[in-house]
């Protein structure tokens, strides 16, 4: 299955920061396969520019939450708005969220635009100790991501083990702990697109059959 364009989301992009480097490394691998990567994140200013292999779309946001959780949730409207603009202009085939702060917008946009979405959990709240005042809400969001994503990527056994509390769907969580994880993620994108296309075809077929219901059950048309 051909993949040309991926849309990633992370809360902030800072060179040297772990999740940012992860996005950059993945984008670099995708670029080698002629796949374009867009990355949406919050930043100090509004800017759209090429940074390494990434097409960076940074947005500013002036509202402050009363805590980190609220602020992260407030950002979702802006993430949605940005996703909407990019999807209008690019033929995005997969939305890739990183951690819970980008989940709400990713999964809602995935539903709206019928684009499969994948999430990487670099860690989960259970693993982080559940000692944040909003841990139960964060954990709830992480479960929602597991439930709605096409695939969940983790890179540590510790993360996958911590996720056992979620009663994981079989084959949905992929542990890529080896050096060539980028290629595994690319394969996963292809698989997600393929599954989505098959589902769309099945839906279409069901609709067509429904449209020809009379013929389908042997009733001659008038």
């Amino acid at each position, binding site marked *: 299955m051909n993949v040309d364009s991926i849309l990633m989301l992370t809360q902030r992009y800072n060179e040297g920061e772990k999740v940012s480097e992860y996005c950059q490394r993945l984008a670099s691998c995708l670029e080698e396969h002629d796949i374009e990567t867009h990355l949406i994140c919050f930043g100090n200013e509004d800017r759209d520019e090429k940074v390494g292999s990434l097409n960076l779309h940074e947005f500013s946001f002036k*509202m*402050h939450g009363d805590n980190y959780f*609220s602020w992260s*949730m407030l950002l979702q409207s802006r993430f*949605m708005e940005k996703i909407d603009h990019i999807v209008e202009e690019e033929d995005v085939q997969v939305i890739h969220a990183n951690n819970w702060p980008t989940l*709400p917008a990713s999964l809602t946009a995935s539903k709206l635009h019928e684009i499969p979405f994948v999430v990487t959990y670099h860690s989960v709240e259970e693993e982080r100790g559940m000692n944040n005042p909003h841990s*139960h809400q964060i954990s709830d969001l992480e479960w929602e991501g597991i439930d709605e994503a096409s695939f969940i990527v983790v890179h540590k056994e510790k993360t996958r083990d911590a996720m056992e509390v979620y009663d994981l769907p079989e084959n949905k969580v992929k542990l890529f702990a080896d050096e060539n994880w980028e290629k595994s993620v690319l394969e996963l994108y292809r698989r997600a697109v393929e599954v989505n296309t098959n589902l769309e075809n099945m839906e279409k077929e069901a609709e067509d059959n429904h449209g020809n219901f009379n013929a389908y059950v042997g009733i001659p048309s008038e």
Partner: protein
Amino acid sequence: MEILMLTWEYPPNKVGGVAAHVEDLSKTLNRMGHDITVITFGQEEESEVRDGIEVHRINAKEGPDITSWVLMSNHRMQKKGVELLKERDFDIIHAHDWSAVPAAASLKEVTDAPMITTLHSLERSRVGSIHSDMSKLINDLEWYGAYEADEVITVGEDIENEILHHFSVPGEKLHHVPNGVFADKFKKGDSIRDEIALDWERPVLFVGRLCHQKGVRHLIEAMPKVLDKKPEVKFIVAGGGGGVEHYRNMAESVGVGDKAHFPGFVPDDQLIDLYNSVDATVMPSIYEPFGIVALESMAAGTPVVGSYVGGIKQTVVHEWTGLHVEPANPDSIAWGIEKAISDPTWNKWLGKNGKKRAEKKFTWERVADMTLDVYEKALG
């Protein structure tokens, strides 16, 4: 028109007046031929058709604070909205208060439908000032709701001025649409006077959340002053909220414990009977963007003694349908109560005028027409 209403409360879940407002407006618009869909918070995910209105309840895990719960709920509202958008287009997205703003703003972004925000009250006036991070966030969301909306509806002229002043919203975007009342509903109550007072007593009613904003403290301070001159008065202080015990103790401490009855939250059917059984309804509010209690009491033919604040300035006509008193002034509140009940003939005349005013000026049909005008303007 296909209208999507977003509100944190909708009957049977009721905390403040927003639930009743959205339900009555939706029912009236529906009767006028419009399709209304409501997305609201609930105990669990469920959908139902209630009096012709399609109601979808979403559920989100509660957190340590109201804002995180509201924002989680907004994510779920937004997701439900997107699910509905797959089946139909909405002409209007209408958010009620700050607690529905993030979802409405997101849905506006992904549709061509204009967004309308109704601000039923403002945080800065509800709590007196913006003194905490939580209040600041709520205030910011109220601003955001006004900023993102194509048109903003307020329920009173005072709150309209507050928005104009504090949020710098262009005046042409602001619309004052009052609340309404189904007057017939309040006319039909039974008198339960003999259940709430002795035969020589004159019951006076307060209805509302027992909190600072409603001026309960000032009413209790006024009680001994009223009883000095009119010992026949009996106060019924109806309403829930965290303050019931506090205010009951306060009434004890000023020596009016036996003359002030605190029945707690009173359901609608009993409330109608109460309105129809008392000699006056008192609204000693410090802040009252609209004050639906005044309309309900007037519809039942009971005069209103209300603070000269917010919506009470518009609903109550001084010495015609009731009396205006100075907010936070126990002497003035006591004067108003005494005067309203002093002459039974005048008391009845005030009640009759109030009933006429409620029936003519504050019908839901009129409110719905005004709301439709705002929708039409937003649609260009």
